[in-house]
Each structure stands twice: as C-alpha cells, then as structure tokens.
C-alpha cells in the first residue's frame, strides 16, 4: 500500500499541476466520487501521469478533457460563450443571454421556413441551362457582326488576312541565330574565327544610334513634304509672274494696276484702323515718292513718246488729249498733301487728302500695304473704265448675234422662246383663272364647239404628217390660231394687260413663223392660210387696238392647246354627253384643267412623232465633189445640174406602221439581231435601269489610264498560291481573345436549380 500511497500523493500533486496547466475555459467536472470505478480510473491516470513524467507526452493529457467539453448535461452547447456554468445560473429563470441568442435565431429561422422547394424537373433545368448558355454564346458571337459585315462589303480582301510582321533584324541577330550547316559554311566560319573577327559586335555605333535618334522617319517625311510644297508654290508664283509680265495688252495692265491700287487703298484703310503709326510711315513713304516724282522727268511730256505725240497733236485730237492727260497726272502726282498730320481726324477727310504717288511707287509698295493714289476716282478714270468694260464685252456680243443669225438654228431658237413665253403666260393665266372662277360654266359651253373644230383640224394635220412628212411646228401654231380667231368675243374675258411689251414681241414672232410656214410648205392647209390672211386684214382694219386684240388671241391659243387633251380622250363619246354633265363633274374637270393647264401634250406629241418620222426616213446621198470639173473656191457652190446628177435619192422605205394611226408612234428601230445580245429584263440587284447602265459604262484599259484600269479591275478576293489561309482570329481584327483556354473553363457539374433560380434566369433570358 505504501506504493499506492505514494502513487496517490503523486497523483494529487499531478492533478494540481494539471489544473494549473489547463486553460481556464476548460470546464471541469468537479464531482469526484470515490468508488471502485474511480479506483480504476485513478489507476489509469496514475499510469499516464507516470508515463508523462518524462515530459514528452504531456499534451496527451490535455485531450482527455475533450469529451467533457462536448457532452454537456443541458444538451445546449455553450460553446464559444467562454463562460463557466454556475449553479446559480440554472436556478434563475431563463433570460436572454448572449449565448442563447444565436440558438434562438437558428430556431426562428427553422420555424419560419415552411417547406423546402422541390428541385425542378431535370429536363426543365437542362432547358434553362441551354437557354442561358445559348444567349451567352450568341452574345459572344455578335461581336463578330461588324467584322463579317466589313469583310463582306470589302472592295478587296487579300488572304491570308494576318500578315507576318516584317521586322528588320540587324544582321548580327540573324548571324547569331544561324549555324553553319554545310561543309563550305563551316570552313568559312573557321576562317573567320581564326582571324578573330568580331563576333559580338555592338549592334550600332554611338554615331549611328545618334543619327537614328536625331529625326524620326515621319518627321523627315513631313519636313520634306513641307519643303516640296514651298518649292512648288514658289515655282508656281514665279511662273505666274512671268506669264503676267509677258502679257502685252495695255488694257489688261491698266485694269490690273487699278485693281492693285484699289487693294492698296483698302489695305491702307485697314492699317489706319489697326496701326496708325505704321500708316503714318506709309504716308511718309508716299511723300518721298512724290519728291522722287518731282525730281524725275516722267510725265513731263519730254519723253520720246511725248515728243512724237506733240508732233501729231496738231492734227490729232486724241494725241492732244493724251498729252494733256499726262500733264494732268504729273500735276496730280506732284501735288503736295495738304495736311498729312491730320490723319486721325477721320476717314472721309483722309480720302480727300490722300497724297498722290507715281506708278513706280505703287508697283513697289503694294505688297507693303502702301497707299495708292490711283484709287481716286475722278470722272476721267471712270469713263475710261466704262470704255474698257465695253471693250471687254464687245467681242462676246457679235458672236451671239452671229449664232442667232444662223438661219437653220433660228427657227429652233424662236420656238424655244415661244415655248418660254407660253409658260409665262400660262402662269399668269392661272392667276387670272382663279379670279374668274365664277365663269367657267359659261366658258365651257362656248368652248366646246371650238375645241371640236380644233380637233378636226388636228386630225387633218396628222393625216398630212403621215402622208407627206412635210410639216413643221409652225403650222400647228398657225392652224391653232385660225381656230382661235373664230371666236374673238370670248377673248375679252382675259385680263392680260400686264405683260404688254413681251407679248407684243412674241406675237410678231408668231406672225413671222406663220409666214415662214407659208413660204416653206406649199401644202399648208388652206384654212390656215386663209386664217392668216384674215387675221392680217383684221389687224389692218382695227389699227390702234390691234395689239391688244392680238395679245388676247395669243392667250387663247395657249388656252386652246391646253383644253384639247380631254376632248381627244372622249373621241368616241357623243357631244351630248358633255352637255349633260353635272355641275360636280364640271368642277372636277375644271380642277383637272387647272392642274394640267398649259401642258400642251398634243403639240408635244405631234412634234415628237414628226421627229421620229424624220429620223426613220432613209437619207438622200449627195456625192457631189465641189471643184470637180468646174471652178472651186470659197463661196462657190457646185452647179445645180451637177448636184442633181450626183444626188442619189434614197429609196422609199416600207410604209410606217403608224402611218394611219395619228395618236400612236411605233418605233421601228428595234434591231432583232442586236436584241439577242441585249439584256431584256432588269437584273436582280438593280432597281433602276440607269444603275445597271452605269455599271456597264466603266470601260477598260483602252479608255482609262493604267492606274484607273488597275483600280477598276481589282479582283475581290486575292489569294496567294502556297500560302495557308487560317481561320480568322480575334487578334487579326483587333479583338482581345480570351486569355483562358476553353479546356480550363469547362464546367462539369451544373448546379441544381430551384424554381426561384429558374425565375431569375428566365428574367435574365428575357433581358
């Protein structure tokens, strides 16, 4: 037992130690009952304590208390509270202590949750996943849209798209990376090494480096371009100056000088405003110039020219004038400025007091904003200027006259002027019609028979056209006029007094036209001729008011042409129908008439048809050779006999298909052989034939310069033989490619989804 005693004492001491060693937060089971089991346990402890005496396994002892930590009597863990459970705590009613708050919270949370949501059906989850993934990937793909569009529309694509960067490697780099392979190379290298050639040379000498740094390529280019431009400008101005100097025209120089003077004056004024001191200097210069003029003999009538003029002056008024002019100029130039000091007073005064300077100074000082005395506009100069301008205009006028006089064109011109006048009148008439809206009904009735008549006339005309092909536009006019004349009473309605002079002229022209028509075409319809004569008679009789009458007639002629079109349409309709028209209908017609007032469709059509017929007629062949067998020269024409002999008459072609169809033009030009080669239908991408024609009209090398030709024939896709074309990459087009590899991003287990997730995702999908 002794040993047991000793052991117990050891144990006790040991336990003390143990207690000390243990951290405070270790809850201790204080109850130690004495029993057999305890005996055993103590023994165990003893053994352990003995074994732990050597100090190594002491930690193990601490483990023992773990069990008691976990197993708490109250089944509520007080873990983390760091408090000892004291008996008094348990006696008291339960309070809200910090240790329990967390637990309570947990409990509440559990209570608040009713049921856990069911996970979605697997298929549905997958569907959602797919949808989300699809949206994501299509978003990624949409970044390619601009690239694809650009490539599709590109003028030219050169494959491979990514060009290897051509880097300029110094020779040393290349040499270092290269090894001698063949025996010859090896031999050479051996030799080089033997001679101790510098193997690791510095790449560039300091001087070279400095020179590289000195100016970048762009800078040099820019500088060069600048210099080039300056040189080009200089040479251009030089050339221009030379050219101008070479012009001999005095008039030109005079005008030029005047212009310069004006400019100088302006400049001077500006200078005065901006910098009075500088202006003063200028004035001083002018003063000096005046002195120079006084000293010189210029404008003194003592030169060679003046002397010669002096001789002529006796007989020639102009020479005398010129001399006087010169003297006057001298006087002007040498006149002293009255008050050059009073500069600041005002511009109006200054202009009067401007000093006068000789030419010499002007020429020199224009650039330096010099004041120029030539600005002074005396009447004399003005007159001269006017003269000059006249001179300048003169040459143009005769030309115009010439052209107008040329006989062939005359008719055309007249026609055109006529048309213009018609237009004018139409606009005016529209106005007047607006004023006379009240009367249309009456007018309509009166007009109807006349329009019928006109129609019959026109038909006759058409017949003639088709049979003889010998009519001109003037006839229509004249025939129309006859129709007009038969109802003069109506004309009074038109208040057309506004444009008197113009109209009078056009009328005259019209008359002329009519006469020409008579002369040229013997087969003019009788009615027309009669009408014309009648009209003449009328005009003779009436005398003073004739002008007015005529004007009105003119107006009605226009009116008539415009009203014809509806009646042509209603050819088949009996006239009674027209009489039965409702008022509404009449109004409608009136509106339409107004809308198309002055659209002389019929006349245009007839003209067109006439031209078409003329064009399709085979032409006579004239084989006369002037000067062959008789005298030749300017103004000599081959004799009529000869002309007759050598004129080959074109055979009469087959009759036109539209011969008996007055209101139809049948084009007979279509060539069936050519048609086989022509495009019949507008091809797909084009929306208008002009677009298509434009694509055809850009010709090749025969008609274009080399550069333009190359540009025009540039192929759309260029590939190089032997070059591998790789698929386009994000880097090629300037996008950043994803840094992570596809392999590393693979997601293996997609998450489970609940309904809430699903809703969220679906919302995202919608977005």
């Amino acid at each position: 037992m002794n040993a047991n005693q000793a052991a117990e004492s050891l144990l006790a001491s040991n336990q003390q130690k143990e207690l000390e060693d243990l951290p405070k937060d270790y809850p201790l089971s204080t109850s130690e009952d004495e029993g057999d089991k305890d005996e055993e346990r103590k023994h165990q402890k003893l053994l352990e304590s003995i074994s732990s005496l050597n100090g190594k396994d002491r930690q193990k002892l601490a483990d023992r208390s773990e069990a008691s930590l976990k197993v708490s009597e109250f089944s509520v863990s007080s873990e983390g509270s760091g408090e000892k459970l004291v008996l008094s705590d348990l006696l008291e009613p339960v309070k809200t202590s910090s240790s329990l708050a967390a637990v309570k919270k947990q409990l509440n949370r559990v209570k608040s949750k009713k049921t856990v949501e069911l996970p979605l059906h697997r298929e549905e989850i997958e569907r959602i996943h797919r949808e989300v993934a699809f949206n994501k990937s299509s978003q990624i793909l949409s970044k390619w849209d601009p690239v694809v569009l650009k490539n599709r529309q590109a003028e030219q694509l050169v494959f491979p798209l990514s060009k290897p960067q051509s880097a300029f490697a110094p020779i040393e780099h290349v040499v270092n990376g290269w090894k001698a392979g063949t025996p010859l190379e090896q031999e050479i290298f051996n030799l080089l090494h033997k001679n101790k050639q510098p193997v690791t040379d510095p790449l560039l000498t300091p001087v070279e480096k400095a020179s590289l740094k000195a100016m970048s390529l762009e800078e040099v280019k820019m500088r060069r371009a600048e210099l080039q431009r300056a040189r080009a400008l200089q040479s251009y101005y030089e050339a221009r100056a030379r050219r101008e100097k070479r012009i001999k025209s005095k008039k030109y120089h005079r005008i030029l000088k005047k212009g310069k003077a004006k400019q100088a004056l302006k400049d001077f004024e500006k200078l005065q405003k901006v910098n009075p001191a500088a202006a003063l200097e200028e004035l001083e210069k002018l003063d000096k110039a005046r002195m120079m003029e006084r000293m010189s003999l210029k404008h003194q009538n003592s030169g060679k020219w003046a002397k010669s003029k002096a001789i002529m002056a006796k007989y020639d008024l102009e020479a005398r004038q010129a001399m006087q002019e010169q003297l006057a100029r001298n006087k002007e130039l040498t006149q002293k400025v009255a008050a050059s000091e009073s500069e600041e007073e005002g511009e109006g005064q200054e202009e009067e007091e401007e000093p006068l300077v000789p030419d010499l100074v002007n020429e020199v000082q224009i650039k330096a904003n010099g004041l120029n005395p030539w600005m002074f506009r005396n009447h004399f100069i003005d007159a001269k200027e006017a003269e000059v301008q006249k001179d300048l205009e003169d040459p143009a006028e005769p030309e115009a006259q010439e052209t107008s006089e040329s006989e062939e064109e005359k008719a055309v011109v007249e026609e055109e002027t006529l048309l213009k006048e018609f237009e004018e009148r139409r606009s005016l008439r529209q106005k007047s019609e607006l004023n006379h809206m009240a009367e249309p009904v009456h007018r309509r009735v009166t007009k109807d028979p006349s329009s019928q008549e006109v129609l019959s006339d026109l038909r006759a005309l058409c017949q003639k056209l088709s049979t003889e092909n010998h009519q001109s536009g003037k006839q229509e006019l004249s025939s129309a006029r006859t129709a007009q004349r038969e109802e003069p009473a109506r004309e009074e309605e038109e208040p057309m007094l506004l444009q008197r002079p113009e109209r009078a002229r056009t009328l005259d022209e019209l008359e002329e036209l009519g006469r020409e028509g008579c002369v040229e075409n013997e087969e003019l319809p009788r009615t027309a001729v009669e009408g014309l004569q009648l009209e003449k008679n009328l005009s003779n009789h009436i005398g003073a008011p004739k002008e007015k009458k005529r004007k009105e007639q003119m107006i009605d002629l226009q009116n008539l042409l415009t009203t014809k079109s509806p009646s042509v349409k209603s050819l088949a309709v009996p006239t009674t129908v027209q009489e039965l028209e409702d008022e509404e209908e009449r109004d409608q017609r009136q509106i339409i008439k107004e809308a198309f007032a002055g659209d002389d469709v019929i006349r245009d059509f007839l003209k067109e048809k006439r031209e078409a017929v003329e064009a399709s007629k085979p032409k006579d062949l004239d084989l006369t050779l002037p000067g062959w067998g008789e005298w030749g020269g300017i103004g000599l024409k081959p004799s009529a006999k000869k002309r007759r002999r050598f004129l080959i008459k074109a055979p009469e072609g087959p009759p036109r298909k539209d011969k008996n169809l007055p209101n139809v033009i049948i084009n007979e030009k279509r060539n069936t052989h050519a048609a086989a080669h022509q495009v019949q239908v507008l091809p797909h991408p084009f929306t208008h034939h002009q677009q298509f024609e434009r694509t055809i009209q850009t010709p090749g090398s025969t008609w274009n310069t080399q550069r333009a030709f190359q540009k025009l024939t540039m192929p759309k896709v260029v590939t190089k033989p032997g070059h591998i074309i790789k698929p386009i990459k994000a880097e090629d087009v300037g996008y950043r490619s994803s840094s992570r590899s596809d392999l590393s991003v693979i997601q293996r287990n997609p998450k489970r989804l609940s309904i809430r997730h699903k809703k969220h995702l679906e919302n995202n999908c919608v977005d």
Partner: protein
Amino acid sequence: MKVKMLSRNPDHYVRETKLDLQRVPRNYDPTLHPFEVPREYIRALNAAKLERVFAKPFLASLDGHRDGVNCLAKNPKSLATVLSGACDGEVKIWNLTKRKCIRTIQAHEGFVRGICTRFCGTSFFTVGDDKTVKQWKMDGPSCGEEEEPLHTILGKTVYTGIDHHWREAVFATCGQQVDIWDEQRTSPICSMTWGFDSISSVKFNPIETFLLGSCASDRNIVLYDMRQATPLKKVILDMRTNTICWNPMEAFIFTAANEDYNLYTFDMRALDTPVMVHMDHVSAVLDVDYSPTGREFVSASFDKSIRIFPVDKSRSREVYHTKRMQHVICVKWTADSKYIMCGSDEMNIRLWKANASEKLGVLTSRERAATDYNQKLKEKFQHHPYIKRISRHRHLPKSIYSQIQEQRIMKEARRRKELNRIKHSKPGSVQMVSEKKKHVVAVVK
C-alpha cells in the same frame, strides 16, 4: 531670230534594256476610241468563251486505296500532305506535289469513320468501327520500328466522327453522345447528350473554338457549348443532315449538307430560318467543306458529282464530275483555297482546281492584269444573254441531266398545286411558305 526646234528626250522613247516593252504613247481622247461598250462586250464574250475553253479542272487521281474512301483530312501546317481513311480501316498519307502515297497504316478493323489532324500538324486521330480512338504520329516510324499508334482509347460504343480543337489539346468524338476528350486522359472530360440517337458528325467552330455543331440521324442539328458543357439549341429539318461545316471567316455561319439534296446555310443565332438554301444536287449531299476564304464551299453528293456554291447564292457556280467517279463521300478544300480534293466510292481521291479555268503556276504581271480584266468583263456583262449562256453551260452526265429535268418538273408541279390551293381556298387561309422556311420543322430550345 529664234527658231524653235523639235526636240525629244531620249528617255521618253528609248528602252533601258532589250527586254523592256516598247513605250507606246497613248491618247486617251474618247473621240479617238469610239464604241466603248460594244467593244468591251465583244471582249467579254471572248473572255467567256475562253474561260470555257480553258476550263480543265481535273488535275490528278490518287489511287491506292483498296476500298471506298470514307474520310479525308488536311494537314494544317503542310499544304502538300493529305490524309485519307478508307472503308477497310486503312489510312493513307499522301503527298500532293508528288501525287504519291507516302505512308499506309492499317488503323482500324472495319471502317475508318473519322480522321482529323492535330492543330500543330504533328499527329492525327482516327476513329473506327472497332470502337477505338487512335492517335498517330504524322511522321512515319523510323526503320525497324513498327507502325504503332501513340495512344489508343477503347470506348464502349462506336464512334462515328471526330474533330480536333483548333488551338488546344482537346478533341471531340461523336457516337451515342458528343464526348470532349483531353488528349492526356483516357476518359472524356465531358459528355453532352440531348435525346438518344446516333450522331454522325461533330465539328468545332474554327473561330469561337468552344462552340461545336453536330448532326444526328433523327434529322436534327445540335449546337454545343464546350465551356458550359451543355447543348445550346437544336434545329430539326425535313430530312437527315449528313455533315455540317463552319465558315472559317464568319463565326456564326455554318452549312449543313442534307439528305434532301439541299444544303442549308444557317446563322447559328437564328436557326428558325436558314440564311440560304443551296440547291442543285440531285441526290443526297454527303459532305461539305468551306473554302478557307469563307466565300464559297464545295459539296459532295451521292449523285457522283461535286459542286461549288458561293455562300450567298442558292445555285452552284460549278459542277465537277468524271465518268469514273462514283458516289462522292468526302470532300475537302485545301488550305490555300486553290484546290479541291474528293474521295469517292471507287477508291480514288481526286484533285481538282477550285477555279476551273485558272492558270496554275506563276503569272507574269501582264497575264494577271489580263485575267483580272477578263474576270471583270465577265462580271460586268454577266446578265447579257449570250455571255450568261456561255458561262453557265456545263456538260453533265445523262443521269444527272435527266434528273435535273425531272426534278424541275416535280418542283413546278408542286408549286402549281400550291398556287391552286391558294387560289381555291378562302383568302388568307392558305399561305405561301417561302423556300427557306419550308424545310425547317422546328427549333428546340
């Protein structure tokens, strides 16, 4: 007195060397060169005729296989190397410049179903009917060594197709499902399925490389996202799609070769309507491959011909056939976009020019200018009837020709019937369905 002399700078008319062209001074005054358009028209006519005269597209036939050629692959790093797999499990590597087979491997038992090269061009993969995936070295074994694959993966089911990722050590196979494999592992890193049917072909998108497309025998085309390991969308067509091919220049465009004689070009973002329906074949289309320029593609058909379609045209611009060429099973456009290869049933691989009348070899600048000009002329006058007729004229085998006629009649009849139906029913109740929409049955999300 100053006398003006005529003087010329010899630089303007003397050639520097004998080989230089004589300088011809030109006057571009249009009045001196009348009839621009008619003259150009004649030139265009001549160009069109000459094009047909020089149209000799067939270059070579590579024979050596002992069974029908089932699959072709090109080497991404070498233009001259082509690989082919036959129906007897034999793989041959060809040198196109020599037009010779440089290596033969008995790779599989049964068909070689698919073949693809690694992006670096050092090795290639084959799948066969013996349920294996094999990786082979591109270079042949040194002497004494045996012809052995680098790796062999034994699968549970038959793999019907294979394609390699364009940038990484990943490849995809298809069979019962689409499997994505890491080259280093013997099991797929992910498998993607959508329904159960045998998938006949799988292709990686060359631009956005994480996208895949596959086509299965239940008439659908399925798109996959490799990163998210999920299918994206499925479109069901009228009939089965045999293969698809992605456009190498337009990331979202792919073309599907269908059994109903047509090819469909889709924008993968809008699958409900194809961008273009390409029709000209008269039998099932078996394979399709894009030109590397992305402007055209070539299709191989069961009707013993291959056709070249522009991407934006519904009709083919060219048809190639020979007397001896049987059903064409696979076709490839070479990486320099100049040639086309096709493998067919009768054991031959044929090499064609992509542009039938193109002159091969180096062109002088004048030749090039002339061809460019001729090309432009043909393009300019393409709508003129004579030129259109000449440049469209092709000789076709009687079978194809008669079938085209037959189908034209059938199509016309169908159209007429549809029109009649519309005519005789209540207005608005029957509507004309456009050709593009007609063939898409459904799009499944």
